C-alpha cells in the first residue's frame, strides 16, 4: 500500500500541480513545445509586450512545475504581418536551468520593425 502511494506521488511531483491556464486567448499559443516531455513541466504564466520605438519587446514568465531542477532551452521566433519568419537562423537556442517549483522571466526583442508576432519555443 505504501508503495502504491509512493508510485502515485512521484508523477505528481514530476508534473506538479497542473492548473488550467489563465492566459488570455491570444497568448495561449505563444509557448510552443519542441520536446513533448516539457509539456506539463514548464508552463507559461504571463506574457508582457511593450514597444521600444518601432520594435516589439516581450517578457514572458515561465514556471517549472516539477519539484526538480529543469534544464531546458528556449528561443524566440518572430513573424512579420504575412506570417513569414524573420531571420529563421538568427535566434540561437539559449540554455537555462530552473530550480524546482520556481519561476523566471525570459526577454526578447524583435530583430527589426517588421515583426508583429512572436512565439517562444522550448525544448530539453
Amino acid at each position, binding site marked *: 500500500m505504501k508503495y502504491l502511494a509512493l508510485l502515485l506521488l512521484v508523477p505528481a511531483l514530476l508534473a506538479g500541480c497542473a492548473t488550467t491556464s489563465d492566459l488570455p486567448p491570444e497568448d495561449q499559443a505563444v509557448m510552443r513545445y519542441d520536446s513533448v516531455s516539457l509539456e506539463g513541466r514548464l508552463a507559461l504564466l504571463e506574457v508582457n509586450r511593450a514597444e*521600444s*520605438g518601432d*520594435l516589439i*519587446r516581450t517578457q514572458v514568465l515561465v514556471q517549472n512545475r516539477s519539484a526538480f531542477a529543469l534544464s531546458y532551452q528556449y528561443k524566440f521566433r518572430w513573424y512579420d504581418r504575412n506570417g513569414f519568419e524573420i531571420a529563421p*537562423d538568427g535566434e*540561437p537556442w539559449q540554455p537555462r536551468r530552473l530550480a524546482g517549483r520556481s519561476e523566471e522571466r525570459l526577454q*526578447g*526583442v524583435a*530583430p527589426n520593425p517588421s515583426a508583429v508576432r512572436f512565439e517562444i519555443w522550448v525544448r530539453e
Partner: protein
Amino acid sequence: MTRVFTLALVVLALTVTGCTRVQYGDATATETVTVDFGSTDLQMIATSMVDDLMSFPPVVQLTMDRRPVVFVDRVQNRTVEHIDTESVTDSIRTRLIQSGKFRFVDMTVVDRVRQQMDFQTQSGMVDPATAVSMGRQIGAEFMLYGALTSIVKRDNRTQDVYYKFTLNMMNLETGIIEWSSEKEIRKTRSRSLFGR
C-alpha cells in the same frame, strides 16, 4: 578457404567504414562539448548585446528618425583561451545592420578601398564619370568597443568557467559612453565518480 578469408575482410572493411559518418546539424543548437568558449556563447552574447542596445531608451530615441553611423573597434580578449573576438563583433554588427537601425563603416578594409579608389581615379582605365569621388565617405558618430574576460577555477572533479563580455558605445565627438552592457555566462563541467 580463400573465399571465406576474402568475405571476412569485406565484412570487416564494411564494419569499420560504417562507423564513420558525416551529418549536418543545427548551427543554432546548444553546444556543450567542452567548457571552452563555443558557438552557443558567441550567439548568446550577440543576441543579448543587440537586444539590450536596441531597447535602451536613449538609443531608441536616437534611432527613431535616423540611422547613426557606427564603427566597431576591437574587443579585447582578456581570457586565457584563443578566442576570435572579431567573430563576436561581426555577429553583433550583422544583427544591428539587419535591424535597420544602424549603419557601419569598416576600418578593416580601408587599404583595399583606397587601392580600388586609386585604381578608379589614377589608372586611366575607368570612365571618370563613373569613378567614385574621393573624400565623400561618411564619418562614424559612435564607436563600439569592449572586452571579454574569464575566471577559471578547477578542482579534481569540477571545472568552472565564468565569462564576462562587456560592450560600450562611445560618442566619438563628446567622448561620452552612451550605452554599455554586460553578458555573463557560467559553465561547469563535473566529472562523474567513475568516468573520465
